[in-house]
């Protein structure tokens, strides 16, 4: 149990996907301007990460590994994720239209999100059990959510400030991201000390 909590908390705070592992930077910079879209995008990412792990972990363990096909990991995972996202979209549209309405726009874009492919591969690389892998995906998704929401707050306060000409747009966004990321450095070591 303690191990699960450690995995969850370190995925959210210490190894935050966006701010310390640099995965999923495109949506982080692209969709974080407004709080609404930031929330929608991150909820969709959490959702897809969980299902993707639930499907890719058994595929790796029960299909690829026993038959010595481990080298097909990259191809199989990206295809599975792409197909899965399509399927989820169709199912949601048919049965849960309310959810589809709020997440629908973001779902197809997640296929090429490196955070999703990253989390499925990392779960295998770290040798997690199925439960640990699911917890890690949940934590990673929550970490993404936290980073997106925090950063959209930072960006909205930046809107009216007087920024040097050549820093306008992306450069100042990146500098702000650096400071946001700096605040996450403070979590390093906290979790080991709590449970160590």
């Amino acid at each position: 149990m303690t191990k699960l909590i450690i995995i969850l908390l370190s995925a959210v705070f210490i190894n935050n996907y966006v701010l310390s592992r640099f995965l999923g930077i495109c949506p982080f910079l692209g969709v974080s301007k407004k709080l609404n879209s930031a929330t929608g995008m991150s909820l969709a990412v959490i959702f897809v990460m969980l299902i993707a792990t639930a499907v890719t972990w058994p595929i790796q363990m029960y299909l690829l590994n026993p038959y010595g096909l481990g080298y097909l990991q990259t191809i199989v995972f990206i295809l599975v994720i792409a197909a899965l996202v399509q399927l989820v979209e169709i199912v949601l549209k048919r049965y849960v239209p309310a959810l589809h309405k709020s997440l629908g726009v973001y779902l197809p874009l997640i296929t090429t999100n490196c955070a999703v492919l990253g989390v499925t591969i990392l779960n295998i690389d770290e040798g997690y059990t199925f439960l640990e892998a699911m917890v890690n995906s949940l934590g990673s998704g929550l970490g993404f959510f936290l980073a997106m929401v925090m950063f959209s707050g930072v960006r909205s306060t930046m809107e009216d400030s007087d920024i040097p000409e050549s820093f306008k747009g992306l450069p100042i966004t990146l500098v702000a991201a650096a400071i946001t990321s700096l605040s996450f450095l403070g979590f390093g070591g906290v979790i080991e000390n709590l449970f160590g």
Partner: protein
Amino acid sequence: MRTLRNFSKGIIKENPVLVLVLGTCPTLATSTGVLNALGMGVAATLVLTFSNILISALRKVIPDKVRIPCYIVLIAGLVTAVQMLVKAFAPELDKSLGIYLPLIVVNCIILGRAEMYASKNKVFDSAVDGLGMGVGFTLALFLMATIREIFGNGTFCGLEIPGLKENHISILTMAPGGFFVFGLLIAAVNKFGKHKPKKKHPGCAGCPQAEICQKSDTAGDGEEAASHD
């Protein structure tokens, strides 16, 4: 002459990292050391060149409706090949690049060039375009890694630099330093870049996130601001 221009546009005028701002994830993650950055750059260049060649050769065969999945499968196959080569011949590089090596599959630069260039042009032109973009990507990574390694770690390619080794700013090699240096570099490109900005952010045509992405507006603003100088 035309070939030369086709090749060089990827290096300066349409540099994928610093001007088009694509492929930010590997740029930030692997530019902590010069050797890592070069390894990543060469691996991505290989995939980019061959994916451009293949996709251009198959452009009349691949049906338009399912072209993106087809491109992704082709790219994933190439990435797997590169992954196996790196594992066999440079196991240390494989260890230090880790997860970012398989993640070349979802690198926006590669899918972007496939969609914007290789699917419309001849094989030779596409190969040159892929090579140029790859070299531009590698050079941008090299530049960023040089800054981060020299000032952040006091070394260059692992060789110690006297004077800097004792006074290094180690935050530069950590995550915040990556964002910071990248921001400064793009600001410098905005300031000194002489290129005429295009109306629409050119990197976005091939990006599946273009529809909801707000980066295109901000990057466009930045470039326009630079052109007023």
